């Protein structure tokens, strides 16, 4: 319902832009036909006309972009609402159960474990949102130190294995040469974790994720995370790094998320003088995410 309304307003603004431009051109052609003898006026007119048309085009592009961003923002609010309320609903349900019913010892322990997992999930969502806010505030001073990159990756691999309960052979890690880099350890850790988390999350039930680090040209270290998940259409490869963006379709419904993870990865890479990108042969062929960061020699 809402989406249809947005598409309508996008179409309206584009039509308005095109309409205005054609009116201007029509008026101008008429004006030229009347005044073609006065050369200097004609020259000024051409410049003025170009400026006006340029303005309208810019304005239309800007409006359409805003409308799209707004739609993504709404989807984001929906996703975050879900991501915040679901674990709270679960924790509350288990607490009320423990409060009102007789629960035997083994069940009780299981309930505690479930509640702790829900707390973790809640915390992860909150961290993600807060981190996005911090990255957005560019003036923030960063805590730059020397980082053992391989160590960070190893820690993240272990954390993700424990979190999603995947065995070591499903989330395979091949350590590369030890490398050191300068950066904000918290941010780098978050970026690496997000990539690993995504790879496992989007793999579904059958997880085969390969994690490798390698040196590139002696100046960079690249972390390659390869999964055999659903893959990504070519035209989405860049967009998925945008804030709030999620690939439209049923997949985004199936895999829950806020649309912030890859944005954080991309921003962290950029802030450290590196870059992040995705490679995929298309839907059904899995995908590889690469995080490339400069190292200290």
């Amino acid at each position, binding site marked *: 319902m809402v989406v249809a309304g947005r598409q309508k307003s996008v179409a309206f603004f584009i039509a308005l832009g095109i309409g205005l431009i054609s009116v201007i051109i029509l008026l101008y052609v008429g004006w030229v036909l009347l005044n073609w003898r006065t050369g200097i006026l004609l020259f000024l007119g051409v410049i003025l006309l170009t400026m006006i048309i340029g303005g309208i085009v810019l304005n239309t592009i800007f409006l359409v972009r805003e409308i799209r961003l707004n739609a993504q923002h709404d989807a984001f609010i929906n996703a975050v609402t879900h991501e915040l309320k*679901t674990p709270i609903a*679960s924790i509350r349900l288990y607490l009320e159960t423990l409060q*009102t019913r007789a629960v035997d010892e083994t069940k009780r322990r299981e309930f505690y474990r479930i509640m702790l997992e829900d707390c973790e999930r809640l915390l992860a969502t909150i961290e993600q949102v807060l981190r996005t806010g911090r990255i957005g505030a560019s003036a923030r001073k960063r805590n730059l130190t020397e980082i053992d990159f391989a160590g960070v990756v190893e820690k993240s691999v272990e954390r993700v294995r424990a979190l999603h309960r995947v065995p070591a052979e499903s989330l395979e890690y091949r350590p590369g040469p030890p490398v050191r880099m300068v950066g904000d350890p918290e941010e780098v850790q978050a970026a690496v974790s997000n990539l690993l988390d995504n790879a496992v999350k989007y793999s579904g039930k059958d997880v085969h994720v390969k994690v490798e680090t390698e040196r590139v040209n002696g100046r960079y270290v690249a972390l390659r995370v390869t999964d055999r998940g659903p893959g990504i259409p070519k035209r989405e490869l860049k967009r998925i790094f945008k804030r709030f963006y999620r690939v439209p379709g049923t997949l985004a419904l199936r895999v829950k998320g806020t649309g912030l993870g890859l944005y954080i990865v991309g921003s962290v890479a950029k802030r450290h003088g590196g870059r992040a990108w995705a490679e995929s042969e298309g839907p059904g062929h899995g995908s590889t995410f690469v995080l490339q960061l400069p190292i200290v020699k």
Partner: protein
Amino acid sequence: MSRILVVEDEQHLAEGLRFNLEAERHDVQVVDTGEAALELLQPDAAPFDVVILDVMLPGMDGFAVMSEMRRAGQFVPTLMLTARGHPEDVLRGFEAGADDYLTKPFELAILIARIRGLLRRRDWLRASVNHAAAPRESSDTFIFGDKSVHFDRLELRVRDQTFPLTLMEANVLRYLIAHEDKTVSRKALLEDVWGLHEDTDTRAIDNFIVRLRRYIEEDPTRPRHLRTVRGVGYRFVASPAEA
């Protein structure tokens, strides 16, 4: 002992619900997609007494599942459960055919009470159906013209045709009949039937009315019983003067 189907893809919630409903001595089955739920709700499968349906499901969402169930003639009492608490969402759920709606996070006691309410309604329904083996009009029936509304059975009979009603449709009809010949505003309907107090888009009500008209009006485009009062709401007229 009642059979309850829980359609929920969040495993933690589903297991928590299962534990509690089993503690209430119900027979619980959990599925994590709408498609699986529809499979289990086929007419030839063992019937369920209550369905608890989540909205944010992978694939087909809860609203679609709800509509599909009702379209296929599956009228099992259904409670929708969701994180989306906007009045628009609540109304959309009822419009799709839900009998009750609860937003996450919910209170366990309230959820249990509502499920009991749905089961009780179902038991009454069964009792009255058994009772009606001998064709006797029960007290909870309203007759107008050649049509009759059987609130206890959630049915609307027009001559020899019978239409099943959802609880909400029955409630809307009951409310309008209780205010026979008086104009009822959309806002009053929202507040008294749905219990919603916020400024809500009231158009969802119009969809209910459209559906009810399809049952009871000879010509739904020129309603005689369920009249629109422009800019205000609706008026129910039991015996319209012949025009």
